[in-house]
């Protein structure tokens, strides 16, 4: 903790920093690799769709002494379909039967109750027609599409279109990763999963927006200075908000983890578990993407602008000139590809960011006081 706090200060001043943007090619490659894995996993293994999407019945029995094998046999006999029986904690059974007609369920329930020696009223049944899950899924996709369009419009207005596109790509990336994990690990996809996935939308963007907000602020007068290229500023934004990002992600993950491990642990399986699992995977992916994908992408897009290209040229030229003069203090060794400014005095960074310094004297005077008071 203590290291982290101190790190926060150093990150803030740019004393330390990881070159996220400069090494973006690595991250892109990692992401592309993950995405390909996810797609392959999806194509090869497919998603393990729950009963809610396939149609069928899920029965949860109360405590019973009956064995899994017996329950399976009983369920198959009663329904004429294959049954999957899982043992939940506490000697409860969860019996899934695919392809059962809704109307047949009462009869199955009754025969299960007799065979397993439990009361029929105590068996919980979840019966789903085959088209219901499809409808939920379709609606969810529809919601996803509408949300993406709206959010791109909003981000384009609040920030700019490049950021909107980058955020969208990061978002799609998060969803792909989450879906990929589901395909590869074989977790069951239920409406709870869909809920979790959809929540990631807002959350992943939340993180991204915090970084973008800082980037927007930093790059306001970018063309009026020659100290930094856009990429460097982007990197500084990431590093500056890194503590925030870590904190917000940790704080978001904690309740979800509680939900996943405690909620799920008590009940074995169920909606709590489904939602929190996809949230957990998605939140982690979201934190990753806002740092490693979204912001570097913005930098990439931006640097294609002629204005930014010109700026980069100016910055590099200035640095080259400075290097030639041997003024290493004024223009530290910070190439575009090497913006790690560990050696740099923090003051330069701040000054460079806002461009022409507005009130340098007063600021320094204020800082000069040991008390920290300005006046």
């Amino acid at each position: 903790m203590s290291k982290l706090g101190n790190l926060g200060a150093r990150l803030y001043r740019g004393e330390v920093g990881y070159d996220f943007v400069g090494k973006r090619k690595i991250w892109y490659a990692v992401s592309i690799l993950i995405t390909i894995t996810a797609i392959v996993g999806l194509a090869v293994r497919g998603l393990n769709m729950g009963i809610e999407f396939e149609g069928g019945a899920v029965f949860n029995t109360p405590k019973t002494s009956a064995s899994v094998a017996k329950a399976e046999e009983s369920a198959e006999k009663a329904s004429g379909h294959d049954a999957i029986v899982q043992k939940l904690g506490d000697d409860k059974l969860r019996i899934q039967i695919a392809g059962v007609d809704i109307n047949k369920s009462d009869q199955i329930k009754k025969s299960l109750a007799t065979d397993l020696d439990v009361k029929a009223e105590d068996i919980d049944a979840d019966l789903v027609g085959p088209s219901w899950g499809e409808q939920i899924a379709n609606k969810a996709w529809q919601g996803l599409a509408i949300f993406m369009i709206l959010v791109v419009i909003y981000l384009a207005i609040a920030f700019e279109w490049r950021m909107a596109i980058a955020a969208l790509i990061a978002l799609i990336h998060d969803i792909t990763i989450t879906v990929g994990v589901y395909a590869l690990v074989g977790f069951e996809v239920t409406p709870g999963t869909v809920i979790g996935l959809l929540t990631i939308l807002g959350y992943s963007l939340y993180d991204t927006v915090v970084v973008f907000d800082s980037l927007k602020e930093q790059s306001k007068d970018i063309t009026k200075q020659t100290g930094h290229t856009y990429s460097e500023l982007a990197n500084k934004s990431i590093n500056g908000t890194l503590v925030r990002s870590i904190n917000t992600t940790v704080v978001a993950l904690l309740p979800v983890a509680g939900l996943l491990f405690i909620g799920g642990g008590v009940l074995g399986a169920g909606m709590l578990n489904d939602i929190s699992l996809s949230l957990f995977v998605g939140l982690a992916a979201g934190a990753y993407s806002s740092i490693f994908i979204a912001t570097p992408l913005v930098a990439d897009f931006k640097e294609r602008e002629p204005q930014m290209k010109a700026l980069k040229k100016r910055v590099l030229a200035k640095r080259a000139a400075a290097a030639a003069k041997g003024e290493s203090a004024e223009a530290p060794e910070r190439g575009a590809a090497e913006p790690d400014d560990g050696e740099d005095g923090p003051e330069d960074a701040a000054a460079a960011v806002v461009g022409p310094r507005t009130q340098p004297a007063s600021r320094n005077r204020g800082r000069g006081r040991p008390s920290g008071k300005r006046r």
Partner: protein
Amino acid sequence: MAAPKKGRRQSAPGKPGRSLVFILIALVALTGGMFLSGHTTPRLGIDLAGGTSITLEAKNEPGQKNAINPTNMNTAVDIINNRVNGLGVSEAEVQTQGDKNIIVNIPKGTNEKQAREQVGTTAQLFFRPVITQAPGAPTPQPSDSASTGADKDKDKGKKDEKDKATDKATSPTSTPTSQGRAVSDALKADPTPPASDKAKDGKKDPTPSADPATAKLQEKFTKLDCTDKRARVAAGQGVKPSEPTVACGKSPDGKSWDKFVLGPAEVNGKDVDKAQATINQNAGGAWVVNMTFTKGGAKKFAKVTSKLSQQQPPQNQFAIVLDGDVVSAPSVNSTLSTNAEISGSFTQDSAKDLANVLSYGALPLTFHEQSVTTVSPALGGEQLKAGLIAGAIGLALVIIYLVVYYRGLSLIAIASLLVSAALTYAIMTLLGPTIKFALNLPAVCGAIVAIGITADSFIVFFERVRDEVREGRTLRPAVERAWPRARRTILVSDFVSFLAAAVLFVVTVGKVQGFAFTLGLTTLLDVVVVFFFTKPLMTLMARKKFFANGHKWSGLDPKRLGAKPPLRRSRSASAAPVDPKEA
């Protein structure tokens, strides 16, 4: 982190006390409202309280492409609602969801099987001749009317003159206060034919007929109390269309109840081809319902009306009976066949309702069960418990993290989280009775996830304040400078969250919707709490010595935060020796 232009963004410190008082009042008001309304816990959904939840999906019938529309969906909801709640189910609720789904939630302890049967089946619509009619309360004097009805309306029960006289005006069309929905054709002027008198007189018989079934019916009629809901339902239950029955119906003024003895069904809902609410210009622009019968229906209807039109009131009426309830009992004064017009004191809405009922026989749409979930109270309680435990642990973890990392500042965060939780709880509780919001499992998840979202806002704000302190500012200006920028970040990111929730709420169905609702609500509350509670509290706290002087437990110790050291060209070496114990 860049130094912004000074002065521009600086917002006035404002009056923090005022905001705090405001939110306190809001909190007290909500809590007060909670106790006043008598609801101190949120309504629980089926998955937490136990019960059965049935999801129905409307299906398009061939030839009726646009049948799935909001009007028909609402009619269907009303009908299903009457039916389910008619079973004596307490608080069963029927709601539309999305554009073509209806959710029926039946709490535990009701006859779920029967409810399921009722929900799915199409309602029964019959046209039965009226034999006797009386106000809905139990008749104090023995009513002497009786009818076997075995041979249709040939047997006339004697009408109870006392009740009837007031009830039935001679001219059916002109008496909106009575049973005045009259079926008329062009022949409205034709008064009740006296011909019916002989039939009536001929059978006038104060003693009930010997037929035991008739006697039973008579007794039932006498006892029937239409003001009692259960009695109303019981009256219509298990009656075969071919048998006479007793039934209740709202009187035309819509306030009181009338009861009827009805003959066997003559025409049923399937015989109606379509019905439409229209304005009859001839009758002074009044709302009427036009019915068209199918070929077979027209024949039957002609036969009935020719008979009925010969009768005296009330026996010249036919009752339109839906699921055992008399929807309307227009009188007939001429023989009708293919087309019929029902007139009376209709409003546009009531005419449309009746037309809907008539044209669809019952449910305006065909429904298919999409999912049925039965949860025993035991499992529901367990799920709720697990959710609450998970929530509590999540909250505890967040608090621990905040305390360790932010120290004194975490007090503000925790207080804000508590206010946020209290507001959420109160609003959810109040939304139960007002918009029928029910806390279900996804909603619980939404609330737990919201802990993170709410805490995020504080982190954004606190980090900004700390950044300002690192710039070398003292706390009070640091807070005021940090706020506008943190505010923007919070608003932008909360807006994105809210957008996601709103889109999901509007577009999706089922469990996803409950989740989206909670998420949207808590996102809004987050903004409210941060603006009206966290920020003002922070402003107040910044005046306290503990925080302002950067006590080492305040979380704002400039030294620990690595505030800028005095010298301009300081290197990291001089900035970094900061005590590494900063949390």
